[in-house]
């Protein structure tokens, strides 16, 4: 069984080597002539004003939050889906309760306007 996963390690090495190799080749070939103006950050040619690490609105966090909750749900739903056609209809009911409780959360967020971008 582990042999099946060993090829993932090989994949990881190759997937890392492809971009690193490309970047290294380019690093050898390309010119290096930095100067202060060139190395400034690019904001449409205008001099930058203020700090780049600005504060974002809380809306981003809410989306990530709902995502994490539903992501966790997959940890339960995927085994259930695999087992379903050998389980019978009671599994569907048990599953519906689980999903309904989570949907209540989604509906709450929806009603409260947490899903609006604005």
């Amino acid at each position, binding site marked *: 069984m*582990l042999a099946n996963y060993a090829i993932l390690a090989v994949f990881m090495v190759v997937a890392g080597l492809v971009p690193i190799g490309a970047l290294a080749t380019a690093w050898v070939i390309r010119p290096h002539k930095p100067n202060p103006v060139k190395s400034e950050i690019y904001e449409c040619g205008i001099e930058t004003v203020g700090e780049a690490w600005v504060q974002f609105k*809380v809306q981003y*966090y809410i989306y990530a*939050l709902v995502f*994490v*909750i539903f*992501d*966790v749900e997959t*940890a*339960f739903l995927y085994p259930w889906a695999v087992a379903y056609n050998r389980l019978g209809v009671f599994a569907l009911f048990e599953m519906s309760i689980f999903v309904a409780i989570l949907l209540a959360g989604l509906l709450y967020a929806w009603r409260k306007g947490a899903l609006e971008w604005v």
Partner: protein
Amino acid sequence: MPDIPLSWYLIVASALFCIGLFGALSRRNAIGILMGIEVMLNAVNINLVAFWRYITPQALTGQVFVIVSITVAAAEAAVGLALILAIFRSRDTVNIEDVHLMKW
């Protein structure tokens, strides 16, 4: 797998736990503390999986326990970060030494 003794996993898990503990107790930044706690939970999960594999490989309890524990970790991170954001909004800081409303 079979040629790795169980104690190796336990040692790695306890090392990870202690690193997380150090992070959780010593960082000034509230988000840093939360990250320490997440690492501690991960260390516990390694232990659970190792015990499942080495002691009760036929029972499912170990794996179910890990999935539930991951769920709890996700819920904890969600609420904890929301609290940190709320504190940041009202007090404009995430340095928890500045947040001492309930301190003597």
